[in-house]
């Protein structure tokens, strides 16, 4: 269950405030990514707009609540809702985060870091197997940004990702901003991280912004992509075969044209070969 998703090109995160812009102006975007849980509702505005938009654009589904690293019981109620949504959307691929966010009944609604241990690796591989069997499709996992590391950890985050890829065959959504945020917070070199991930394991890239508090930076996704992240992307992309790349903005939404300008910047920085698809 590790077939690579198709290469679609350059995409944007589809958020409520851009529904009208997209329907009315039909912008030149190769694909759109939705937050899966926003469509767990039965009707109303989200579906009214998505049903129209998915006629014209391929959709990827990105979840925020699966909590795949949790040691609590597998939440089959959640997975059933996800599967129902997958059937209705027919996405090009689905993703969630490499983290835990819930434990038993408790939901933190945050992306909490896992320790990088053999135990966590075995646990994730097993959970991936259960989830992918249930959903009957591969799940792509995104690296989260973090603000702490654990005594327990036995390896670097990138070694952990490599090991997970080798054990389970899973692919990653690399959020370059998250790599940058963690690199700054933990004092490692972001390029060491990116270069360590096997090329065939990268299914998608997120580009986003953060907030800099001096002593640490927080992955707020409410700012433009910063110069350092653009530079990382440009440098990383030169070494890579084409990867689905997307601008992710989750708050403090700018006018739609501003996001389109960021998307065009991503296209301009990527190698020529990334611009042909189909």
């Amino acid at each position, binding site marked *: 269950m590790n077939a690579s998703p198709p290469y679609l090109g350059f995409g944007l995160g589809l958020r409520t405030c851009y529904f009208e812009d997209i329907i009315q102006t039909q912008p030149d975007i190769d694909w759109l990514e939705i937050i899966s*849980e926003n469509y*767990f*509702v*039965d*009707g*109303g*505005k*989200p*579906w*009214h707009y998505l049903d129209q938009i998915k006629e014209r654009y391929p959709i990827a589904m990105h979840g925020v*609540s*699966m*909590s795949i690293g*949790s*040691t*609590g019981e597998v*939440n089959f109620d*959640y997975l059933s809702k996800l599967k129902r949504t997958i059937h209705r959307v027919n996405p090009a691929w689905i993703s969630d985060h490499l983290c*835990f*966010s*819930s*434990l038993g*009944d*408790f*939901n*933190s*609604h*945050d992306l*909490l870091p*896992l*320790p990088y*241990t053999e*135990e*966590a690796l075995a*646990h994730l591989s097993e959970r991936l197997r259960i989830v992918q069997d249930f959903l009957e499709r591969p799940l792509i996992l995104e690296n989260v940004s973090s*603000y*702490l*590391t*654990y*005594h*327990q*950890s036995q390896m670097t985050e990138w070694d952990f990702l490599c090991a997970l890829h080798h054990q389970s065959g899973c692919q990653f959504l690399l959020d370059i901003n998250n790599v940058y945020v963690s690199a700054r*917070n*933990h*004092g490692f070199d972001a390029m060491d991280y990116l270069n360590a991930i096997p090329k065939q394991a990268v299914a998608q890239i997120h580009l986003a912004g953060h907030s800099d508090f001096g*002593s*640490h930076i*927080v992955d707020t996704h409410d700012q433009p992509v910063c110069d350092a992240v653009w530079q990382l992307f440009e440098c990383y992309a030169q070494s890579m075969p084409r990867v689905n790349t997307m601008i992710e903005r989750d708050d403090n939404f700018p006018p739609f044209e501003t996001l389109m300008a960021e998307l065009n910047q991503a296209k301009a920085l990527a190698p020529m070969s990334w611009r042909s698809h189909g």
Partner: protein
Amino acid sequence: MADLAKLQQAFVDMLTGLNPELINHIAPQPGLDAKDRAAIYHNAYRIRLTKVLEQDHEMLGRYLGDELFDQMVAGFLSHYPSQDPSLRHFGDRLPEYLVNEPPFSAHGILSEMAAFERLLLQAFDAPDDTRLSIQALQQVPANLWPNVIFTLHPSVRLLCCQFASVESWQALKQADTPPQPELSSPRYWLIVREASLRTAFHPLSHSDYVCLKTIDDGLPFSFVCEAAAGLHQDTEAGTHAVMQLLQKALNSGWLSQYTLPAHMSD
């Protein structure tokens, strides 16, 4: 318990404020100390869930003012941590919290306003369905009318208020002073997502409220008429009221369909 499970429990206990033991699991690093690193997550947790209640309960927030609202959020978070992966359900038990916990429980309007705001949210993303037309109803033969069972549109919610909750909500929305909370008699409201996807609410008479409740309970039209006749103490006046309500309900898209018991339909 295995190390991973222990670590995750410690993380949760740190977030909920139960136990700060997580800091013993955090590796020392330059810059921030372990306590500050844990605090980033603790603060983010509180801020994120506070924002959800602020968005879902904007007018309740204005009614309470910042200080009491923050007190309510803190109390609610400790009594009812989020149990659903979707944030839209986080505040579902807020009316229950407000009705039970002092100082809020001394003011019944608070719980009722929260309940009203929950119903607006429920109407907003309720399932879609058809809206019943007058034309479709005209196909029902006159002798079968008593057996017709109507279905309310899935977004319709009915609310009986003991306090001036909806009036206060409206006043606060327009930045006016809310009225006195006490009412001389209960008031009734219908909330619906209109065909335009706008969420709207309408005042109902007691009779209309009872009739719509009867429909909502899945009872046939004859029961609806009976309920109205009882309230109007006159069959003719009751039927007249029901026909007026039906007209209004059809024009406003409050009904999605009708059914006839299987053996009656032909």
